[in-house]
């Protein structure tokens, strides 16, 4: 159970025949995720991974043939916005976009379009969603986390893996881990996921992993104060980041003095969130 993805997920992989798509489809299948179809335009009619997953020319055909309900996108950045529209127009209600480097104006249009339709996008530029023991949608390594009662939401990739792994090492498990992605405009915010975790009976504690740039963490702090009853611990990366520089993630930038780690940490601490001074400490805070 938990949130977003689980045993009922019927997954479509957009861009399944690309290097990334194929590699991670293999890992998702190995984890037990119910990958039912893939799409690569022009390659419909074939199968991949020794006949395990059929490939279709379009999301519409894949949807009609297999009844997918979730899509994960691995297509290159210049085609990714189109892939999101295709999934959305076909009526897929949950879209997870792994692709990094989508132009930000494309994402503003995509996000405004999806909001009108009420369709949930996770990402882009994210590691995806993992519900340990049930489904892995994206690229989070499956073996670094065990089932448990801690919900994890993060803007980062490997930093999140650190935390999942640190939790596992002390015997703590995860209900669902959601990577919301490092882009300035994304589909799902901290607040969205915090709300889901609060409502989820399988989640008892929450970890939030933020970083510099934007004000999503500050908004999350407000939301925590107003709506959350479950304990939250956090870590914010980028205390030493210089202003005006993008730290790898397109969204990780301190602009005009706003979006600093110090501001975010203060906002979270002000509402009673424990903020770890380094990622490994989070496990201790929740232990």
């Amino acid at each position: 159970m938990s949130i977003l993805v689980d045993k009922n997920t019927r997954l479509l992989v957009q861009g399944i025949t690309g290097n990334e798509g194929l590699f991670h489809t293999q890992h998702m299948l190995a984890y037990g995720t119910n990958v039912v179809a893939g799409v690569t335009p022009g390659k419909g009619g074939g199968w991949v991974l020794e006949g395990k997953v059929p490939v279709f020319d379009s999301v519409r055909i894949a949807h009609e043939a297999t009844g997918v309900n979730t899509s994960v996108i691995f297509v290159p950045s210049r085609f990714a916005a189109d892939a999101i529209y295709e999934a959305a127009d076909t009526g897929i209600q949950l879209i997870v976009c792994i692709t990094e480097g989508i132009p930000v104006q494309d994402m503003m249009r995509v996000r405004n379009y999806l909001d009108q339709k009420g369709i949930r996008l996770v990402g882009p530029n994210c590691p995806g969603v993992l519900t340990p023991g049930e489904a892995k949608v994206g690229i989070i390594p499956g073996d670094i986390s065990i089932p448990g009662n801690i919900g994890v939401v993060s803007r980062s990739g490997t930093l999140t893996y650190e935390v999942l792994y640190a939790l596992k090492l002390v015997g703590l498990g995860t209900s669902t881990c959601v990577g919301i992605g490092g882009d300035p405009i994304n589909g799902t915010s901290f607040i969205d996921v915090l709300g889901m975790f609060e409502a989820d009976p399988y989640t008892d504690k929450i970890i939030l992993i933020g970083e510099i740039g934007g004000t999503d963490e500050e908004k999350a702090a407000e939301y925590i104060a107003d709506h959350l009853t479950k304990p939250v611990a956090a870590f914010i990366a980028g205390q030493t980041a210089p202003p005006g520089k993008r730290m790898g993630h397109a969204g990780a930038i301190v602009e005009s003095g706003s979006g600093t780690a110090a501001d975010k940490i203060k906002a979270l601490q002000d509402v009673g969130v424990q903020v770890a001074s380094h990622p490994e400490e989070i496990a201790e805070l929740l232990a």
Partner: protein
Amino acid sequence: MKLHEYQSKQIFSHYGIPIPSGRVAANAADAKQIAEELGGHVVIKSQVLVGGRGKAGGIRLAKSPQEAEDLATQILGIKIKGLPVRKVLVDEAASIETEIYLGITNDRAERKPVMMASSAGGVEIEQVAKETPDKIVKVHIDPLLGLRDYQARDIAAGIDLPREHWQTFSQIGRGLWRAYLRSDATLAEINPLVITSQNRLLAVDGKMVLDDNALFRHPDLAEMRDVDVEPKAETEARKYNLSFIKLDGYIGCMVNGAGLAMATMDIIKLHGGKPANFLDIGGGASSEKVAAALRIILSDSNVKAVLFNIFGGITRGDEVARGILAALQEVKTDVPMVTRLVGTNAEEGRQILSEANMITAETLVDAAKKAIRAAQGGEQV
């Protein structure tokens, strides 16, 4: 990607925004020639990608071609915030009555472009935002619909622009929106947009920042990149698709993942060290990529130690370790190396590395401490 003033104004002009007559010059003789063509009364503006050019003496008025040449000679000799001036823009001087700010940027929180204007032009908008925030008028633009004419008028009214200028202002607003939209900009600003003593609106200074991720659809704009102004190491890193930012510390960092890379810098600082760079080598970690990254890190003579922090996920730890070893074969150095490998097959990876001449660490804190000590010469293995 930041554009120079002269590049930004070329784009503005293409979209119908009035700009002063002028051209860019790389030497004083050309500046003189341009000043002659423009009638002698010109402004010489250093083209560097930082603010505060005026205060640094990088913007000067000339009353004759000869003065233009002299001033260009001076300006082409200075550095502004550490950046050498290699080009000057020679613009016809405008007699300015009023200065306005007009810009478009992305509002992350609203997920929409926002057009901002202020009657306090000529000053950085951040400063206005801090000191007199009520002087800033903001209008959000529907990204599917684009800027509406009524919004441009609302802005004109909001900054108390005299009505006679509303129509031209709206046209400039529309032009700026199209420049922003069609260049995939993340910032397009005119500052100042002036009313001249001839009662004309004129974009006297401008700035654009383009979305690097969208440059693939703007090959013409991509060519405008001025690689002279960024650290050589960053240019080099871009070639290898490495995300690299030079800092002023002494511990080189090589990490997979942007968030983890930031966290690594943070923890070095937390324990009293100073990171020399941000570097995300991304997924995988082929020996070529690791080698390139290592060369880039070591090209900074301040670097006294290197910290590898790798989380083995889909990429296995032993593979990464072999990549590092292969890279070390290529790049000979005696700078001490500290390696922390976690996750999948980390144990095997650590084994491989400890057999080489490397310091290994288990936790991030441990790694940071060891790197700091190594940099201080306290521990060579």
